[in-house]
């Protein structure tokens, strides 16, 4: 025993010294403190972006970064989401609502100092529509005359597509139909301009993933320029002195931190490493609501959580069954007790007040009527109703909701529901092949207009995996609404279409999403809005608070 004691004692001393050394290391300046002083916003940005090429990417983290690097013709007001001038200082819309003429700013420049001209947009849209590029959002430009035909290879002459540079600073766009939400589409990255000389320097115009998006190569026209990009670690952007509104941009830069783990993100926020988080762990919401409500921002989001019913399933073919299932769901209880993130119980598929549109609907909770419908459909008190499976992609949140719905249906209709979860990609493949009875789904609008929620349900639509089809619905969405003479008439038609959807119920809307984030008190100019969209030039940090 006596022999090893000195060794142990030494070890203990070393251990203590080591610990002391460590304790001296802590307590340095946090990102938030340094950021407030240097005007650098530290932004929790979900996952590592796939790419920073606006004509290739699809995700929200990519959206957040690209909006710092590039700018479209028209922007969005951070509070109302109404169109605001961006590269275009003004625009006129023709009488028939089909021709848009944009006046570009003379002082709009690329980040290398090159002037930005109308021709740049023509070239960029040409690129965005190149079939070989594999642009998944090319359809955002399809309201433009012949854009769809060009992207699908039906025509090869780009001059037939409805975008023309009238002169250096005037751009004219012609549409197939008056499209009231067209200006909004111009703030989507698929309609953003890209710098031709830079792209051609690093490869062909339609080459996926050339090196033009790397720091040092990237030439943009947004308020910031790409500074560094360390995979899975950080992307930093710094102020672009050539931006037309540079004198109004109050941040010196933004550091985007790709943080996949929401708990890590919340801990980093608490430790002062982030100014703003992408989301918040569900189990922390109550705590923040109670203790630090000023740090928590929860606002309705332009997205709907719903269940898809496969109407090809024999017992779900019957509309009465689908309506009974819908009536037996207590949505209020679902959002109060299960999701608990301020979500709104869905009263329609399109979130209410989407640019002035609210559907008329009757999505109430009425177990009595539900039982009556079930009996009428031949399943009195649930007898003879086959065991039905609810499919969802593996996630704790989806599971909780599925269990709650399972219980509601069992309690009110006395039917047996089996739950099945699958890995995300397996789930998607099952849904796309129609191998499900009921499956969970979520839909986030591309723009603020009912069309983005309703055009997906046309017969054989790419996102309509329910097998549902209704001739009147198709007619409204594809023919009548696009040609409607006024916004009111159009909304009226949309309401009729949505009423058909909510009567026949190939989908059961459950709740309207909320976007949730934690924001340090030193951050100003971040307004919650339906699209969770941040207008970076409006953001500023004050030094006084942490």
């Amino acid at each position, binding site marked *: 025993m006596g022999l090893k004691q000195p060794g142990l004692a030494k070890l203990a001393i070393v251990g203590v010294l080591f610990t002391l050394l*460590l304790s001296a290391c802590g307590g340095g300046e946090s990102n938030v403190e340094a950021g407030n002083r240097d005007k650098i916003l530290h932004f929790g940005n979900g996952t590592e972006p796939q790419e920073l090429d606006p004509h290739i990417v699809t995700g929200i983290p990519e959206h957040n970064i690209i909006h710092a690097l590039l700018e479209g013709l028209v922007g969005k007001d951070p509070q109302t989401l109404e169109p605001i001038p961006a590269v275009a200082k003004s625009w006129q819309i023709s009488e028939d609502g089909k021709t848009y003429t944009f006046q570009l700013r003379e002082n709009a420049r690329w980040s290398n100092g090159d002037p930005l001209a109308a021709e740049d947009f023509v070239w960029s849209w040409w690129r965005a529509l190149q079939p070989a*590029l594999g*642009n998944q959002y090319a359809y955002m430009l399809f309201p433009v005359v012949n854009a769809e035909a060009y992207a699908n290879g039906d025509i090869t002459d780009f001059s037939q597509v409805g975008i023309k540079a009238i002169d250096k600073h005037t751009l004219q766009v012609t549409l197939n139909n008056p499209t009231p939400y067209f200006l909004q589409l111009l703030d989507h990255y698929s309609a953003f301009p890209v710098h031709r000389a830079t792209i051609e320097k690093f490869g062909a115009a339609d080459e996926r*993933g050339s090196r033009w998006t790397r720091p040092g190569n990237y030439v943009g026209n947004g308020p910031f320029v790409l500074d560094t990009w360390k*995979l899975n670690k950080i992307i930093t952007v710094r102020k672009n002195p050539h931006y037309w509104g540079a004198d109004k941009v109050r941040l010196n830069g933004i550091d985007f931190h790709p943080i996949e*783990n929401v708990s*890590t993100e919340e*801990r980093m926020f608490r430790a002062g490493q982030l100014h703003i988080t992408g989301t918040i762990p569900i189990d922390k919401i109550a705590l923040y609501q109670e203790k630090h409500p000023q740090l928590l921002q929860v606002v309705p989001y332009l997205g709907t959580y719903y269940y898809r019913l496969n109407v090809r399933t024999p017992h779900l073919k019957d509309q009465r069954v689908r309506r009974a299932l819908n009536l037996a769901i207590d949505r209020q209880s679902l959002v109060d007790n299960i999701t608990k993130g301020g979500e709104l119980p869905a009263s329609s598929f399109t979130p209410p007040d989407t640019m002035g549109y609210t559907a008329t609907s009757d999505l109430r909770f009425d177990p009595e009527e539900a039982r009556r419908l079930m009996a009428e459909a031949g399943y009195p008190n649930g007898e003879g109703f086959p065991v039905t499976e609810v499919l969802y992609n593996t996630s704790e949140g989806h599971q909780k909701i599925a269990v709650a719905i399972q219980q509601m249906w069992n309690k009110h209709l006395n039917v047996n529901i089996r739950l099945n979860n699958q890995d995300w990609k397996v789930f998607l493949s099952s849904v796309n092949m129609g191998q499900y009875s009921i499956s969970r789904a979520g839909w986030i609008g591309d723009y603020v207009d009912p069309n983005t929620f309703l055009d997906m349900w046309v017969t054989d639509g790419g996102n309509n995996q329910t097998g549902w089809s209704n001739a009147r619905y198709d007619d409204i969405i594809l023919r009548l609404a696009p040609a409607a003479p006024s916004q009111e008439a159009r909304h009226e038609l949309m309401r009729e279409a949505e009423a058909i959807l909510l009567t026949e119920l190939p989908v059961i809307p459950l709740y309207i999403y909320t976007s949730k984030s934690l924001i340090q008190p030193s951050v100003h100019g971040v307004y919650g809005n339906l699209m969770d969209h941040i207008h970076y030039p409006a953001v500023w940090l004050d030094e006084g608070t942490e």
Partner: protein
Amino acid sequence: MLKFFFTRLLQAIPVLLVVITVTFFLVRLAPGGPFDAEKAVPPEVLKALEANYRLDLPVWQQYTSYVGDLVTGDFGPSFRYPGRSVNELIMAGLPASAELGLYALLVALVIGTLAGIIASLRPNTAQDYIPMSTAMIGICMPSFLLGPLLVLVFGIWLDWLPISGWGDMPGDKILPSITMGAGYAAYIARLSRGGMLEVLSQDYIRTARAKGLPERVIIFKHALRGGLIPVIAFLGPAFAGLLSGSFVVETIFQIPGLGRFFVQAAFNRDYTMIMGTTVFFAFLIVLFNLLSDVIAVWINPRLRHQAQGGH
């Protein structure tokens, strides 16, 4: 010795080939493709994407062209990150993972062998039970629990150490290294205790004791060499595992390592990335197993004799 080394090296080639082939076909058998998303990809776009990544070719042709590229060391482009090659992604993740693995291994070795030796000196007493039951807890405690726990105590309550990052702030490498090393330390403690107990009962140790050598010399000079052989055999695969990174530790601590790519690639059905990381990982395992065999032979006179052709 050289002959032994090269024979083992040659044996590695069919192993790797089997890994490549099986992974290649299994990945394509899994339901769901790399471009499936919540919003359906329009058919025309999907066709363009598939052509871009040669997925429109017959599978055997995809296989031969993949293996052809692999021979030249080219893992192909990532599907998930269009602008990156798999080689680039692996090289980007490797340094952090390797560094973390190395520190974790050091933590594991120091704590593990010390605990094992201490325990082996007085078997079946408190001096044995305490380190060994701690080790058992270490094996059982998953890193997704230990990591946040350490962060909570040392990062948030005591505020001694940064809670995340890698090389951004002084001391931010300590918690992840401990989190990752803990499980291995526990395993090493058990291995070294077992090895030491066996050696300490051998005749030559009794001889050494009879000669009146100090206990310290007996343990560190005579017993340790034999007692640690099981640990060395374990080190090869352990180091390969540590090098390839840990998804859990890397996500908890925001470390830009390989482990995150490895796991996300499977979720994303990023075929080339799955292949690249799997083949790379297989290569590491083969390599480090070989190295640990070589070290074992070098350290153990009996095995050395066999390897040199003696019987």
